[in-house]
């Protein structure tokens, strides 16, 4: 018997990363911009996405959404009201989505007919940060009811995101939300990150958000 050291030097999540890489190629080849929405539970991801889909539809744009939850299809039903194709992914208790789940749920969609694909991740600010879903843009949501210091408590997910969206701005005054403190905390864990402020209820900030998506899409298409 001989003992020896075998060099491996591979990412532990390399299986997921590889599926995500292929998925990204496939989605980009269809001309889609894929957006992964992450946040804690109750920060308003579904309402934000509902408003986004509705507004896109009014503008004559096409989009589809996948929504991840531990159980129930409540969110998919809510989102379907916006009149865009929506599918629920039940993770059966798992705390995050993985690239394979995304791939599996795209099977019967004609991807080339959509301009945007939204993925609403499971409400969780920890686990989804480790899993690449093949997205082009990762958007982290922070609601005014959660407190300004959330980015400092969950630096991993804020650092891994490309854009931060502050939601429920219609409640900001009632919550005595300090927007400047929240901005400073986001910038502290992710210098230079674009920050948008929105309210899915009043529609405030939604046009800036859609303009931002459109910019991302153009920038991506310029690269690809």
């Amino acid at each position, binding site marked *: *018997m*001989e*003992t*020896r*050291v*075998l*060099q*491996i*030097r*591979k*990412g*532990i*999540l*390399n*299986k*997921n*990363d*590889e599926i995500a890489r292929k998925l990204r190629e496939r989605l980009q080849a269809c001309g889609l911009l894929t957006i992964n929405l992450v946040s804690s539970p109750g920060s308003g991801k579904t309402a934000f996405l509902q408003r986004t889909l509705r507004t896109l539809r009014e503008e004559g744009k096409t989009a589809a959404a996948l929504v991840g939850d531990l159980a129930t299809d409540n969110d998919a039903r809510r989102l379907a009201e916006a009149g865009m194709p929506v599918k629920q992914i039940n993770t059966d208790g*798992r*705390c*995050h989505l993985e690239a394979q789940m995304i791939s599996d749920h795209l099977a019967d969609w004609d991807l080339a007919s959509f301009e945007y694909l939204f993925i609403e991740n499971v409400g969780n600010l*920890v*686990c989804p*940060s*480790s899993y690449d879903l093949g997205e082009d843009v990762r958007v982290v949501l922070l609601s005014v009811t959660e407190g300004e210091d959330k980015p*400092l408590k969950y*630096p*991993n*997910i804020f*650092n*891994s995101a490309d854009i931060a969206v502050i939601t429920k701005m219609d409640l900001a005054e009632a919550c005595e939300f300090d927007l400047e403190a929240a901005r400073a905390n986001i*910038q*502290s*864990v*992710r*210098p*230079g*990150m674009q920050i948008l402020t929105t309210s899915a209820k009043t529609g405030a900030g939604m046009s800036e958000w859609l303009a931002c998506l459109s910019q991302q899409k153009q920038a991506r298409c310029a690269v690809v």
Partner: protein
Amino acid sequence: MHELSIAYSLVDLASQSAIEAGATRVNSVHVRLGALAGVVRGALEFSYEIACAGTLLEGSTLVVKELPVRVYCAACDMEVELPSVQRFCCPRCDTPSGDLRQGRELDIEAIEIDVPGDVKGEEHGNTGATDSQGDSEQK
């Protein structure tokens, strides 16, 4: 708490490499864990033992090397280590920097294995970049 599913991925990857190398047992697994990997060391160590049960890795030791966050500071023109993941500013000159150079690692670096004396293989494993793919993973 996704450390258990990460531990299963880790054990799968290590077992596969060990089997390909003709190993009869894995003594230890060396992992690099970045401060921004989103993985809690204690939870990974706890999950590791569960994930190893019934595999070549049963009874093996998990050796975790923790890596701090390093960013490139343009003002200092050098890579610096951040004392805190809450503040992405150069500890020398206080200039903000999001130019991450280290901290997201979640890799298996190496495994220590027992191989029967008559198994003479060339060096297995991938000596390339950490995100490179093994052939066995390709479909």
